[in-house]
């Protein structure tokens, strides 16, 4: 397979380009039921009212991947992983704010 010379243009998953339930579960190599569980736990929030019209953003994808890794590597349950994700997001947000106001220290 020779591809060195080709330039590949992908699809940017932004506000307009979202993933279906099937695409998200395939991208993360998990069963759709598990994604449904993550939605029920409030770990990810799709657009759309019912399962067939659910659409997931790129950030849902990275959250699902992180939950998977946290569960697998650290042996924490879903509620614990959800809490860890929320706290990690908060830490990241605070670090970013800190870097904005506290650049010189």
């Amino acid at each position, binding site marked *: 397979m020779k591809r060195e010379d080709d330039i590949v243009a992908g699809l940017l998953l932004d506000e307009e380009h979202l993933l279906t339930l099937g695409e998200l579960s395939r991208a993360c*190599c998990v069963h759709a039921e598990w994604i449904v569980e993550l939605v029920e736990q409030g770990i990810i929030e799709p657009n759309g009212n019912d399962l067939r019209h659910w659409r997931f953003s790129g950030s849902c994808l990275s959250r699902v991947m992180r939950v998977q890794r946290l569960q697998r590597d650290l042996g924490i349950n879903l509620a614990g992983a959800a809490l860890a994700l929320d706290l990690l997001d908060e830490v990241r947000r605070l670090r970013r704010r800190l870097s904005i106001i506290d650049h010189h220290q």
Partner: protein
Amino acid sequence: MQYKDYYAVMGVNKDSTQDEIKRAYRRLARKYHPDVSKEENAEARFKEVGEAYEVLKDPEKRAAYDQLGANWKAGEDFRPPPDWDAGFEFSGGGFTEGDASEYSDFFESLFGQGFGSTFRSTRRSSGFHAPGQDHHAKVLIDLEDAFHGATRTITLHAPELDPRGHVVTRERTLNVRIPKGVRQGQQIRLAGQGTAGIGQGAAGDLYLEIEFKPHSLYRVDGRDLYIDLPVSPWEAALGAKVKLPTPAGVIDLTVPAGSGSGRKLRLKGRGIPGGNPGDLYAILQIALPPADNEKANALYRKMAQELAFNPRAGLGV
């Protein structure tokens, strides 16, 4: 190939119990988990610890490893003894969490063979036709790339099986178009660039997560950018038109009279471009001219004498 001291990697003694090893692993895994840790080289450390635990948690492998003898030093040149695997049966049991392709040559040479087959059976047991797996990778770009768009060459390492069934790491480079307006953490999906399918199964997709390199001037928050803008005391006090670098080029910025240090000036739409572009914030930093010559000294003294200014009025002193 270098000898690896798995006990040292995990910070445990050679006579530690399995429970102590398990506890050490859990502590280190939390400390170095790439999703959690801010430690430098967290990912490399995490893999190293994972590999060490893979050996030490399993009494069979641990016994075999101990069999190499206690005189090896970490980093020492190592060859496995010729009759090394005689008398050991590596069932491959418990090999569920790690990824064989991530382990070192040292590990491979000691425990490699038995694991290839486990790897194969877990990954490739789903019949003759199966879609390839989707892959995930990160791509590191400069902030400027988000302004102008760019092409980035990325190198992917994918574990594959060679014709004899051994796990090999295949390297593949890909030139990827980075669209204008991308933001930190966004995903780009490249259809059909994941693992090849089996039989007539379609290839999987590749997902690339965008990550910005730290920039010397700008800090990024979503679509918005922040930059420190040094101004002189008279520019801040009297107002001025000053030059401001932006990723799209230098612009003129009006500093309003009476601006204090830390004041944020918002430049609408000068952040990361897009349908809904971000803003650029210039944060004023008042820079004092040093009083390192007679003229500057005289000017400061004149201000001290002629300006009725108490910077500590708010403290009541």
